[in-house]
């Protein structure tokens, strides 16, 4: 499987590999969370790490998200680099205070004396019939918090490089993992055959250490007529919708929401004059709003059409009506067609 030190990995393997690389390099990297130890995590992202690196470096915790993050803040302040898993992003809220009031603010309130270099990994997004408590995309609840970085990869290659970067970062990083992409890209149409990463070029991942900078969007597809801003699962839905509509759109995979690669965004929109934003999260006060605010400010005179957002609805995630909720291939394609009308 190895090819020039690269290996075909799915996103789970890439994420695991990132932790493995860092744990091997740096004894101060500890991995913990609910079920991450012996069992290796409900999504298997930490499988094998305890056996390889020892019980005291990869271990289970009590079911207390606030306790997990609180302990990690203390460890981070000490000088360790905790990498913690929150089993589903839907369960991150008991830790909200420790993340926002503590991890994100410790550096500021101590004027740099104490810092919280922790990485919080957590699966996000729907499309797996998980209903309202296994499908949420809470990124906008964190991008509003000064002092926190928010990252969301869309493929194995990025996932590994960004996660290593996150672990090495001296600030707290929220690392959101689109669970629908763990095993393969997703078109946004559940009736299309499932794909996996085994032959995808973005599934070809270096086995060793490498990093991807934050604040750098990735041009997933170059184009001239429309800019699509998206991240996570929606990158693949965008790709499918662009294919379906035949529009020559530029797809930017933002990857890093905070800090944001505004330069790449502005450049693209100024070129295309049209901008479509896709996210799974609830619309009102979603991250799309922030993108629109910046794009309309910086590209006002280039814009030919209002910026459109296709998003999850302002409701909890319904179990049975998942595909009516999810901003899938059809809704995205429709939006592309409409925004391209004169």
């Amino acid at each position, binding site marked *: 499987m190895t090819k020039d030190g690269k290996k075909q990995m799915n996103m789970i393997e890439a994420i695991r590999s990132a932790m493995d690389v860092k744990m091997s390099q740096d004894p101060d990297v500890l991995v913990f969370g609910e079920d991450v130890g012996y069992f290796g995590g409900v999504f298997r992202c930490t499988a094998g790490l305890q056996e390889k690196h020892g*019980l005291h470096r990869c271990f*289970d915790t009590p079911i207390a998200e606030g306790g997990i993050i609180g302990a990690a803040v203390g460890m981070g302040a000490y000088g360790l680099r905790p990498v913690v898993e929150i089993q589903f992003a839907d369960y991150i809220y008991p830790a909200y205070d420790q993340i926002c009031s503590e991890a994100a603010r410790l550096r500021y309130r101590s004027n740099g004396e104490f810092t919280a270099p922790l990485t919080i990994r957590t699966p996000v997004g729907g499309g797996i019939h998980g209903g309202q408590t296994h499908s949420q995309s809470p990124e906008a609840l964190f991008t509003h918090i000064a002092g926190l970085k928010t990252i969301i990869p869309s493929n194995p290659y990025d996932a590994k490089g960004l996660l290593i970067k996150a672990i090495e970062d001296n600030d707290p990083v929220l690392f959101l993992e689109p669970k629908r992409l763990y095993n393969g890209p997703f078109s946004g149409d559940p009736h299309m055959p499932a794909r996996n990463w085994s032959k995808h070029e973005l599934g070809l991942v270096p086995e060793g250490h490498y990093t991807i900078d934050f604040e750098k969007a990735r041009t997933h597809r170059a184009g001239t007529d429309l800019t699509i801003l998206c991240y996570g699962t929606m990158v693949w839905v965008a790709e499918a919708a662009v294919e379906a509509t035949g529009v020559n759109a530029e797809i930017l995979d933002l990857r890093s929401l905070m800090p944001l690669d505004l330069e790449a965004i502005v450049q693209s929109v100024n070129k295309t004059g049209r901008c479509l934003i896709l996210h799974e999260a609830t619309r009102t006060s979603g991250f799309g709003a922030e993108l629109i605010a910046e794009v309309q400010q910086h590209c006002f005179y280039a814009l030919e059409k209002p910026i459109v957002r296709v998003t999850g609805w302002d409701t*909890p995630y319904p179990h049975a009506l998942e595909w009516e909720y999810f901003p899938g291939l059809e809704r995205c394609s429709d939006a592309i067609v409409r925004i391209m009308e004169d």
Partner: protein
Amino acid sequence: MTSRKNISNLFVPEPEFRPGDLPDYSSINLDKEQWPGKPDPLVDAFETEAHATGLVRAMKLNGEVYGEWNPELEPDVLIMGLRNMLLTRIVDKRMFAMQRQGKLSFYMKSIGEEAISVATAMALRDSDMVFPTYRQQGILMTRGWPVLDLMNQCLSNKADRLDGKAIPICYSVRDKGFYSISGNLGTQTIQAVGWAMACAYKGTNDIAATFTGEGATAEGDFHYALNFASTYRAPVIINVVNNQWAISTFQGMAAGQSRSFASRGLGFGLASLRVDGNDFLAVYAAVQWAAQRARNGGGATVIEHFTYRKEGHSTSDDPSAYRPKGEAKIWPFGDPIDRLKEHLIKLGKWSQEQQDALIDELKAHVLETYKKAESLGTLATPTDINPATMFEQVFEDVPTHLRRQRQELGI
């Protein structure tokens, strides 16, 4: 490869047995132990210390009763208990199998823990609100919620009372005194205390009963529940179902060095009992005791139900990955259904033949009900639920922005 042991001074607890180990519980001989007696329900909370760290029991593994906790129920009540437990188990097995066939997205069984939900429901009044987790479906069986309704929700079909909004197992049945189950662990414990405070405020004689797994006691909400219950002397029963496992995590992760989960209550001045959760009679007696205490102004009781999760956490889980395969079988507290059956047989009120006949009857009923439910649709068939319902019950009325979004969806 480094062996799995601490090489730093950081202590990380581990279960006694892992896959490959031969679990050995021979040191536990239940029938030889001395168990605490039954005090007056209005006893000073601090006098329940022996109950919080010991084990309240009423019958031996062979069904023989002993001690002070036998609730002395009529045989027909016991048979009803047996029936409710069996029904619960049979429904669980059916739904699990149907999930494997793709008819529902997900299911969670309560096998081995049926005495806890069923005996609790029978010891409470129907007007007492329970705040369950996803492993107390036995309460619904006991309170007579139609199995068809349960199945319809699990299948997310057009007859689902919740319009497909909730995942299977997150039931909400207000008219059966069954609070809406949250997917978020722990949250309902403090809500139950609030409900109980409301009962007290309104001067009704109702109480609330909440359930949490032992794993979820680590959440802050459990702490809030104990504290508020203590401060406002809320008429509530806080049940901790210690089934030894929280997905793949053994109970010691939440317990730490404590002697029992029940003993957490003592630090808040709450009466606290640790009960053999596989002993139908003991669970019934303990809940009855706590309910009496609560209804008479004695405030809250913490009850730890000591039991074992015999199967996987959910349909997504295979426990052989983290615990010995045979552990469930040799777990020394027996099976709650078998034990109650033995007790009834000892009483001369039941026989194995009757048991077999009851099982056959219930199986037929469940199968028939399932067929009816499936005929109303499953998750595998295109949904009949009107998409417009997705925008309803976010608020009491559908506000303008949701009406706009509904239109955007073209409906």
